[in-house]
């Protein structure tokens, strides 16, 4: 018997993983949640049929979304994470002793429950005493914050479902308001390869660029995401992601990573020509 999980990256392209066993399937108030066990990628979490993470490649995403801003801003104490119920981002953040408080806002309580049960390693740091979890709509939560955070990380689902509100101009504007005067916003910015993804990426980059004085895009290779090619947005009121990189300081922390290095940090901001052009269109 062969059991396959497929995710459509476009109506004409799909990625399929052979599944050993389906461990969990349920529909929460917001979305369908599935967990599979696979040989090649280990356990896989899918929301509404989109792969959120696999045990095998999630380190790339988590390291790139966390260490890039951490190596730039010298004094991050208070962090807001939106989405990310799987706990991977929080896991990376808790490795920094300098961080005093992490607020995690996840709309769907079920996601956290499922991850605690089926991805315990990932979710293990959700119980860190610095972490406060709020089950709330991210857009609503942030509306009430003003100059509170040093870093906001938006680790959301793609913009075609319940997370659409986290790709809007009103959301980015609210992030701007919620950040301190030297704060940084990092978000998952989708993939620039397939047309529909590229259009969504352009729209959201345009909105960020019109909200923050500094707005740059960086890239990583993530095998299970669309085209294996993923982007992140770095937006800030003060710090430039390359000019203000303090590699020596970050390396002195001696954090062991599997993907991120301070050399790769710089390289990640050097983008292919087609992408530079795409971004220029909306900046």
């Amino acid at each position, binding site marked *: 018997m062969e059991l396959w999980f497929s995710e459509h990256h476009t109506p004409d392209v799909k990625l399929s993983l052979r599944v050993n066993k389906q461990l969990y399937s349920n529909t929460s108030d917001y979305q369908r949640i599935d967990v599979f066990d696979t040989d090649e990628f280990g356990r896989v979490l899918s929301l509404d049929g989109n792969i959120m993470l696999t045990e095998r490649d999630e380190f790339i995403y988590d390291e790139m979304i966390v260490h890039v801003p951490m190596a730039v801003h010298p004094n991050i104490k208070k962090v807001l994470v939106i989405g990310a119920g799987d706990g991977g981002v929080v896991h990376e953040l808790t490795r920094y002793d300098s961080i005093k408080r992490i607020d995690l806002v996840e709309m769907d309580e079920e996601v956290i429950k499922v991850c605690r049960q089926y991805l315990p390693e990932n979710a293990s740091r959700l119980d860190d005493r610095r972490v406060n979890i709020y089950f709330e709509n991210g857009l*609503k939560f942030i509306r009430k914050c003003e100059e509170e955070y040093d870093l906001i990380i938006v680790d959301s689902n793609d913009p075609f479902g319940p997370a659409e*509100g986290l790709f*809007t101009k009103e*959301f980015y504007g609210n992030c701007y*308001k919620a950040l301190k005067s030297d704060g940084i916003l990092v978000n998952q910015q989708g993939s620039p390869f397939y047309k529909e993804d590229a259009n969504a990426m352009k729209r959201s980059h345009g909105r960020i660029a019109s909200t923050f004085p500094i707005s740059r895009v960086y890239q990583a290779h993530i095998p299970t995401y669309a085209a294996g090619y993923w982007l992140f947005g770095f937006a800030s009121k003060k710090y430039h992601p390359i000019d203000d990189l303090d590699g020596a300081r970050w390396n002195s922390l001696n954090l062991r990573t599997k993907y991120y290095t301070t050399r790769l940090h710089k390289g990640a901001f050097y983008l292919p020509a087609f992408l530079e052009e795409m971004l220029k269109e909306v900046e």
Partner: protein
Amino acid sequence: MMEINQNRAPIHEALEQFKYRRVVPFDVPGHKHGRGNPELTSFLGEKCVGVDVNSMKPLDNLCHPVSVIKEAEMLAAEAFGAAYAFLMVGGTTSAVQSMVLTACKRGDKIILPRNVHRSVINALVLNGAIPVYVNPEVDKKLGIALGMKREQVANAIKENPDAVAVLVNNPTYYGICSDLKAIVNMAHEAGMLCLADEAHGTHFYFGENLPVSAMAAGADMAAVSMHKSGGSLTQSSFLLAGENVNAGYVRQIINLTQTTSGSYLLMSSLDISRRNLALRGKEIFKTVTELATYARDEINAIGDYYAFGRELIDGDAVYDFDPTKLSVHTLDIGLAGIEVYDILRDEYDIQIEFGDLGNILAYLSIGDRMQEVERLVSALAEIKRRFKGDPSGLLTQEYIDPIVVASPQEAFYAPKKSLPIMETEGHICSEFVMCYPPGIPILAPGERITKDILKYISYAHEKGCQMTGPEDARIENLNVLDL
């Protein structure tokens, strides 16, 4: 004849049967189930164009219903608590016009508030009836027209005992209701009909804790915009009538202006939506009310915006308020409603129903979800953060009492001349001028043009309101009576 069972949708069922029989069409429409127009079919989908069909025996005929359309109308009548219901495919405009044309004829007087939709006055242009306007109260802070006071209506009836009908907005665009039951009683005691424009009141028939519906209040006719809060397709609507009305005559009036090729897309959407509301309306409108209440609270928490609600109720000019309406006063932000309306669309990709000089209205309905409401609230918070300015110099007044000199029909058809708009002060207008939406005329045919009105028009124009009505689409010139 079938038994009355709200689980049924006879037009929908007949169309399903029709598809199943794979009938070969040698009748109109010429696209023949979409085959003749592949581009249209690929855009709208085969399912949709496949039921865009003509009247035929198994599908009945809208002009003279005897089978499935008649059954759908009986079901609708029961669902709305009316004696008769008529399926309308020319929008609520045609329902309002048929209602007015049924109630009065040339020379008859009809009592109505001046803040009616243009379709009411259009009907008076068509049939030559004479409007007796009751000037609605105006909320000074919000600048909006409220309902009619009982005493005002009583006076109008007393002064015009020969009037044949009283027309009431139930509710206004902003959700404000007059004391409909009392007005119905006054009209009936004076031997007049009571008509209700319920373009914004479909949900009153199905939800709980909402203002009274026209049929429940004992009104004689009501035009109900099913496609607004009821969820049917744009342009589909119901005309309702009570026992006092001759249904055969209403049908004749409808057939004066309604198409003989009624769209089955529209009719089936009415049928299916009526079933949905009859079966699930209570919970649907409970959710809508909760969403609107939540949005009002959150918007008021932002500060400087005023999302108004039931606190406006004063027992008379605001006898009741529709809690599903989300209207927000914006002037304290330093922006006109129309400016907030434009910023929401241009910068935040949020389309709301309308913005006028001092307010915006976001339409909440059957299809809304919390996540979109959060977006709207957040965008308003952002607009305040980014644009808050000095409110002085912003006009507040949405409503100016008209000076009526001639009847709408007389003025519309009278000899006229075209003048540059700014030179028309003192003249009598022969056409409509309005912001659309909401489509309530600033000037109607037969009304004196005043300095205040010209100031309003140029201000609304400058702020970006979409102005409609005059022959000159650019509204640089106006037609006035050539006396």
